[in-house]
């Protein structure tokens, strides 16, 4: 190599610019090994992260649920309508006073204060102190007997409970609503329909947050709403044989007072879970990534048809008054069909003879005697050469190959399988009614787990799997829709929910000659369970 020392930079650059040195084999192995551990750790971190996420969500859920259950006293209260619906007292039996427990004694004593309705409707009996018969609940925590917001010591009760033997009072048929019902929100009247137990109030040690119906006489029932500290929020005596709690007037926000005489405000929040299934149609919009191939995306737009897909998912949600925030996980499958036109080349073979003709001279020789003129009698045999031109015909068989191009149609199907994580906000109208319309919107994050592209050529009947399209794994959709929910009871509701999903970014990498946005229309069918 010639070196000019006056231009040392160029000398080194020219010499070493494209230098290549073969690395030893161990380097490749080390890189492979490190990449293996890198991917392994990445997966482990991902799984730990996922596990942590769900653990946090579950813990939060349990925490919220545990805490929110404390103030469930007003779950049976409808402050919107000031009604409690659908509770019917069934088949109460008369009993004699002497069969009763101490509770009946206190009832006759009639000393306790009561919290009564603020809203008085004409058809409802107004509760006054005179006609209130006070139920008494034994508190397992405090070991005290409490009548409304008056705390009575057991000893005092026994001493001051004259028994009226002539009064018909029932103790054995107390209907206790099944657990608390914290449906919808604080202003919602929770229908209590699924009470099932009939227990003697004296034998029931866990009647917090429940509605107690107590039959006093044949046509009289006493209704009490209890809070978590066993104070009575509202007592009302109703003179009907078959009692509907919807006829009971209840206050607005403050439904009663606890044993410390503090007002109790209706709870407003609750958790729920949704299980849903939806049928969907995904409509693709193909985008040019290069003007050079604009015709391809136009063609795809014209020829692609949506096909039926589905998704199934599970959502958890938390509701604040009319607004609920939902999140969850879903599996979705989107399908498309494409009538792909393609040109097919057809080869036709034909055999034919090719003739070749050649002209040749044919020699004809004839011997004859030639007399020598110099010597008499001498003669020599001399050949005479004549020629004539003949034509030889030869043939060779040839094969002619012809091609023809014809346009064919192939059916191409694309299948996209996603795991999705929706995060949506829901606003409910007409809450507390049998039918509750709602609107819903939010963001769905999808993770592509598999794509399958099949091309079916009708004339050949073959199925080709094509996995060359560079799809992007994560993607995002905006979702919005409106639906209606049918509240079956306080726990379950059914939902139908048409929605539209707008794809925020192409599902194909921009290295491809075209991009693809997949917008989806679907109808959701679901069931909600409210805690």
């Amino acid at each position: 190599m010639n070196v000019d020392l006056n231009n040392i930079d160029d000398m080194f650059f020219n010499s070493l610019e494209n230098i290549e040195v073969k690395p030893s084999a161990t380097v490749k192995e080390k890189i492979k090994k490190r990449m293996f551990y890198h991917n392994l750790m990445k997966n482990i971190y991902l799984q730990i992260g996922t596990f942590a996420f769900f653990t946090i969500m579950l813990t939060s859920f349990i925490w919220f649920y545990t805490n929110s259950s404390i103030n469930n006293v007003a779950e049976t209260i409808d402050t919107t309508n000031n009604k409690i619906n659908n509770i019917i007292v069934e088949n109460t039996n008369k009993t004699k006073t002497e069969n009763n427990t101490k509770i009946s004694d206190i009832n006759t004593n009639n000393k306790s204060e009561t919290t009564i309705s603020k809203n008085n409707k004409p058809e409802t009996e107004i509760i006054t102190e005179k006609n209130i018969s006070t139920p008494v609940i034994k508190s397992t925590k405090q070991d005290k007997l409490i009548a409304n917001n008056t705390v009575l010591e057991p000893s005092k009760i026994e001493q001051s409970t004259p028994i009226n033997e002539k009064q018909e009072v029932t103790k054995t048929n107390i209907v206790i609503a099944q657990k608390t019902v914290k449906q919808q929100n604080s202003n919602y009247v929770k229908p209590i329909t699924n009470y099932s137990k009939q227990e003697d109030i004296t034998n029931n040690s866990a009647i917090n947050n429940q509605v107690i119906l107590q039959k006093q006489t044949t046509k009289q029932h006493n209704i009490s709403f209890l809070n978590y500290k066993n104070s009575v929020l509202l007592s009302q005596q109703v003179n009907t044989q078959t009692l509907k709690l919807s006829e009971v007037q209840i206050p607005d926000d403050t439904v009663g007072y606890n044993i410390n005489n503090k007002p109790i405000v209706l709870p407003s929040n609750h958790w729920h879970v949704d299980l849903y299934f939806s049928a969907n149609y995904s409509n693709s919009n193909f985008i040019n990534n290069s003007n050079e191939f604009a015709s391809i995306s136009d063609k795809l737009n014209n020829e692609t048809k949506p096909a039926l897909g589905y998704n199934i998912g599970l959502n958890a949600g938390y509701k604040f008054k009319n607004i609920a925030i939902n999140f969850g996980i879903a599996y979705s499958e989107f399908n498309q069909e494409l009538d792909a036109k393609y040109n097919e080349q057809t080869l036709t073979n034909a055999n034919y003879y090719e003739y070749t003709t050649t002209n040749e001279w044919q020699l004809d020789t004839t011997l004859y005697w030639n007399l020598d003129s110099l010597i008499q009698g001498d003669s020599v045999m001399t050949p005479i050469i004549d020629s004539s031109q003949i034509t030889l015909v030869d043939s060779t068989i040839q094969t002619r190959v012809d091609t023809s191009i014809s346009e064919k149609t192939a059916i191409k199907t694309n299948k996209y399988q996603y795991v999705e994580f929706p995060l949506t906000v829901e606003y409910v109208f007409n809450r507390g009614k049998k039918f509750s319309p709602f609107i819903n919107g939010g963001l769905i994050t999808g993770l592509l787990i598999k794509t399958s592209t099949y091309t079916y050529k009708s004339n050949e009947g073959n199925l080709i799997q094509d996995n060359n399209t560079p799809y992007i794994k994560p993607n995002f959709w905006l979702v919005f829709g409106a639906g209606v929910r049918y509240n079956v009871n306080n726990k379950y509701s059914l939902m139908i929910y048409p929605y539209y999903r707008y794809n925020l970014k192409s599902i194909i990498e921009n290295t491809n000659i075209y991009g693809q946005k997949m917008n989806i229309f679907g109808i959701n069918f679901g069931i909600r369970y409210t805690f």
Partner: protein
Amino acid sequence: MALDIKIISDCKRGKAYAQEQIYDLYSGAMLGICMRYAKDKSEAEDILQEGFIKVFTKIGLYDFNTVNSFSAWMKRIIVNTALNYIRDNKKHNIFSDIDEENTDALSYEPEEMEQKITISQQEILQLVQELPKGYKLVFNLYTFEKYSHQDIAIELSISVSTSKTQLFKARKLLQKRIKEKINSPKKKIVNLV
């Protein structure tokens, strides 16, 4: 060197075969770059290994729409890895580790060397490798990566004047060492042949 876009896309998805193909295609050239920054092949292979790990883990950031080709993008990563490697392994300021012998090179007079000599690529590479680290970094960035002194100053956190000085000294030292090679008995014999 050409690389199918599909290979890069598959490499982005973490597919091993794509990583292997990229390595096979570029490892020679990239090790050549590493050799210029390292003191020997062993150190260069360490840099190469780190560099490829970075390439494979950061390939998701490579944008097909950028002006730079994939090889240029990869070269940039390898160079940065080499710079970091030298920084991480420095025991003291790499820009003040020049001994007296090296500074003597400043007295070299280039007009004496206006002659045509023959020197192999391997020897030239060795000359670069034997440069003090500070000289080597500046010389490499300026000569091969075509960095300006301003860019070098930013990259190495030094002043522009330091960069210029280092480059000047590097050139002088290289000239001196080339002269020594020429004057060595072995080289003279080679030249005579």
